[in-house]
């Protein structure tokens, strides 16, 4: 039997839903077929990835519309975990985002989100289009 799971969630563009979404992510991770410790790590990594991706969509994309919604997809398919976060803002150039500074001298309050996503997932892409943008992430879970 296959073990594919697909979840599509649309919520108002507000940080109050972060807890709900991360809990959903954790529950999905717990259904993934892998050793207990791997599953625990994956579960907490997925919680972080969902949070960082969603917060960017909520904060940086199109924040003027109070009825704005964000759409997130969590997908487990054939040994891969996919997270896709859709936004309808102006978009940005993912490749142009620099690594954060790692010493206390030049330390910033922000700018760690993309770095965290890149560290925890195997691939991170941001695809812009007229109908909306998507942050697409993949991690092998076999």
């Amino acid at each position, binding site marked *: 039997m296959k073990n594919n799971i697909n979840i599509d969630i649309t919520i108002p563009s507000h940080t109050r839903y972060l807890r709900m979404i991360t809990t959903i992510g954790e529950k999905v991770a717990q259904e993934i077929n892998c050793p207990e410790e791997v599953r625990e790590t994956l579960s907490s990594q997925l919680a972080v990835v969902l949070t960082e991706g969603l917060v960017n969509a909520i904060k940086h994309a199109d924040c003027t519309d109070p009825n704005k919604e964000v759409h997130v997809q969590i997908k487990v398919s054939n040994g891969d975990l996919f997270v896709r976060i859709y936004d309808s803002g102006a978009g940005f150039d993912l490749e142009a985002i620099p690594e954060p500074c790692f010493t206390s001298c030049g*330390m910033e309050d922000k700018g*760690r989100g993309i770095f965290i996503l890149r560290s925890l997932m195997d691939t991170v892409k941001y695809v812009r289009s007229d109908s909306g943008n998507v942050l697409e992430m993949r991690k092998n879970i076999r």
Partner: protein
Amino acid sequence: MEFKTEQTEGVTVMYVREDRIDANNSEELKTEFHRLFANSTKDLVVDLKEVLFIDSSGLGVLVSGYKNASTLHGTLKLSSLQSQVKSMFELTRLHRVFDIFTTVDDALHSYK
């Protein structure tokens, strides 16, 4: 966000009473830091025992508190990091910046 604050021999200890520090509540932590540093706190221990989850905005607020303390010639130290929180510090190399202790007592001792 709930906090408990204590004064011990010139050092302020702040216990964060919340299971998450994320973009939804990290501003409240920032406000509390400002309040403490405006009220003669220089040395601050932030105890994270109850915090099971932190995101980059939570880390950012701790970094900003660290910088506030440094400006006042004090130090912000951390204690009681749970595993997810510890991983986030390691991932972002911030464990090399902050002094991190197992317990509040260890942190307090280090000021002596």
